[in-house]
């Protein structure tokens, strides 16, 4: 078993224009073991992506206090590629598009970066694995020969993130709003991919705005994040409670002083119609 542990994490970002630092995460604690599925829910702008990117090692996020460890060893001093090779994976909310590199070529390079020079994956076993996974995700072979995310629709990008997840097989995956931009059919397909990964050696941290995703990928623990902190943790029923009360309701119940953007104030958790797939 491996453990990913976040302790009293404070993170700031620099405002490019005003040259000021702003604290986004204000003391986050979180422990995820392999074999577990966690969900973080929270209103927009509360710091969910900041948490994911900081764990992954995005240099734009400055840790001012606290620690992130894997099996007791701090990873904060390690660059993003080293963290990836230690077993971290982040399915990004906004994946980059890169011309001239095919999807397949990239995934093979990613797999090989974890292997010794004399133990690189054979083209045959790579293609076999790729074939299996694109079937699960209802993708076409043609998509793997296209340039990395280039001209992909929002939904295609999400599938492609999950395809990479399935090919790379990390220890811990953070899925940042993997449900946004997906219609129900696509969401089911993507969830199926994630569920296939389930194993005692794999832990998931799902980040979502909506409860809907949790109908397809069942969490062991649900954390609610507001204003840069985890304000409540519970089991799957917490998501349902949130669906009833909305973020505003929970905020008032907990007596937290957090600003919510309008759509979170009237949110009904069963949001639909943002799919473009």
């Amino acid at each position: 078993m491996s453990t990913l542990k976040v302790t009293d994490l404070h993170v700031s970002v620099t405002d490019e224009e005003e040259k000021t630092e702003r604290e986004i995460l204000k003391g986050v604690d979180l422990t995820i073991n392999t074999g577990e599925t966690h969900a973080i829910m929270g209103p927009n702008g509360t710091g969910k992506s900041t948490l994911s990117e900081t764990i992954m090692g995005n240099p734009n996020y400055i840790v001012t206090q606290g620690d992130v460890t894997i099996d007791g060893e701090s990873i904060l001093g390690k660059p993003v590629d080293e963290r990836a090779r230690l077993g971290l994976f982040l399915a990004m909310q906004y994946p980059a598009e890169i011309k001239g590199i095919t999807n397949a070529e990239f995934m093979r390079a990613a797999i090989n970066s974890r292997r010794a020079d004399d133990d690189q994956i054979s083209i045959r076993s790579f293609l076999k694995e790729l074939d299996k996974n694109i079937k699960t995700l209802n993708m076409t072979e043609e998509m793997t020969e296209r340039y990395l995310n280039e001209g992909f629709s929002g939904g295609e990008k999400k599938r492609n993130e999950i395809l990479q997840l399935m090919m790379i097989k990390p220890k811990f995956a953070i899925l940042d709003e993997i449900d946004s931009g997906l219609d129900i059919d696509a969401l089911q397909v993507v969830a199926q991919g994630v569920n296939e990964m389930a194993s005692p050696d794999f832990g998931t941290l799902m980040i979502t705005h909506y409860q809907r995703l949790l109908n397809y990928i069942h969490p062991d623990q649900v954390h609610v994040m507001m204003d840069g902190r985890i304000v409540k943790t519970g089991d799957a029923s917490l998501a349902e409670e949130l669906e009833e009360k909305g973020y505003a309701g929970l905020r008032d119940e907990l007596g937290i002083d957090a600003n919510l953007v309008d759509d979170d104030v009237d949110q009904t958790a069963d949001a639909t119609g943002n799919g473009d797939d």
Partner: protein
Amino acid sequence: MPKSAVLALDPVLLSAAKFDDEPQWLTDLRQSSWDKAKELALPEFAKINYRHWPLLEFAQDGQTNTNIPDDIQAETESYNFVSVGKTTVKSAIPDDLVKQGVVFCDLQTAAKKHAELLSKYLFTKAIKPDEDRLTAVNASLMDSGVFLYVPHDVSIKEPISLLQVQDSRQKTNFVNHNVIVTDDNSSVQVLQRTETIGDAENPASVAVEVISGPGSHIKFSSLDSLSEKTNAYFNRRGHLEKDSEIDWTMGVLNDGNTIADFDSDLKGTGSHAEVQTVAISTGKQTQGIDTSVTNYGKHSEGNILQRGVLLEKSALVFNGVGKIIHGAHGSKAQQENRILMLSPEARGDANPILLIDENDVIAGHAASVGRVDQKQLYYLMSRGLTKEVAQRLVILGFLGVVLTEIPIAAVRNQMIAMIERKLINGQRTE
């Protein structure tokens, strides 16, 4: 007329360059070019200042070393022509081509055995000896090179490949001149590979005249990797007659200072040139690449596509010159010059220069100088790729538009391998 301080043209050079038993017409060509060289100006290339380079500092007593290293010897099998300095190591084409009248030999042999044919094309159509000092010096001092002539209606399927090695195991001059001619409705693919052995400091002057007769088609690829100690001048010039086409793909991967003048003169109606170059500068080198296409003929078409990458403290200038001469109705000229810089200390410049003297044309250009996108690097690295591998992928992706266009798969793979090697060496010192 501006003269360069670097000019040191001793008459000894002229006699040393002469081939054994050289015919008089060639000696005369050398002499008349020599006489003009001193008065001719160095060519001007926008934003490329090379005047202080020792491009004309030739070795007075340039020696010939006829010993051929084993690794070159081992490579001869993959080429039709191999030379080291002035020494021709191999020159062979299949018998059936000889039977069809294809001429293929070194310049020295051609001057004697195919004097009439060679003299019709050598410094007459594509490059003129009195254009500027650098062409004049090449004409006076040429000491190696190839003549390829493809008769009318002959199509050569297998590429003709040349390996021309600059011998810098000692002070030796390398003034190379090649002439490629396709007569009416013929076609051929040519690969020219240039490299250096040894680490003496020498200048290099490499010229290629490509003359495509009516309705003929030439695919010309080159891969240059001269050494860090070489100051190089390249001149590759196409002269295109009616309805002919030249597709150029050039990898400028030298380690030393380079000035490259790549021109296509679209003389004939309906002639067509595609010019694609890839250049990588590393270390402290400067490479200036001046690629021009001139539309003379009606309905002629010329497209330039250039991609360059800079590492360390290097410099790279891409000039894309599109000239449309008055009367070239219905002609087309497009160009795209893009440069990617990996280091804050590198200096890149991409200049489209359009000189259009005709209304009935379609012309366009795009240019950019940029840095590697940090978001892209982060994304690739977040999947476990090291920074170096991620950078190389982004670069190969950037160069991809040119690389995928290379018609011969073997050349494409060789080019990619050479690019990777140059990038790895450049990254090592970053």
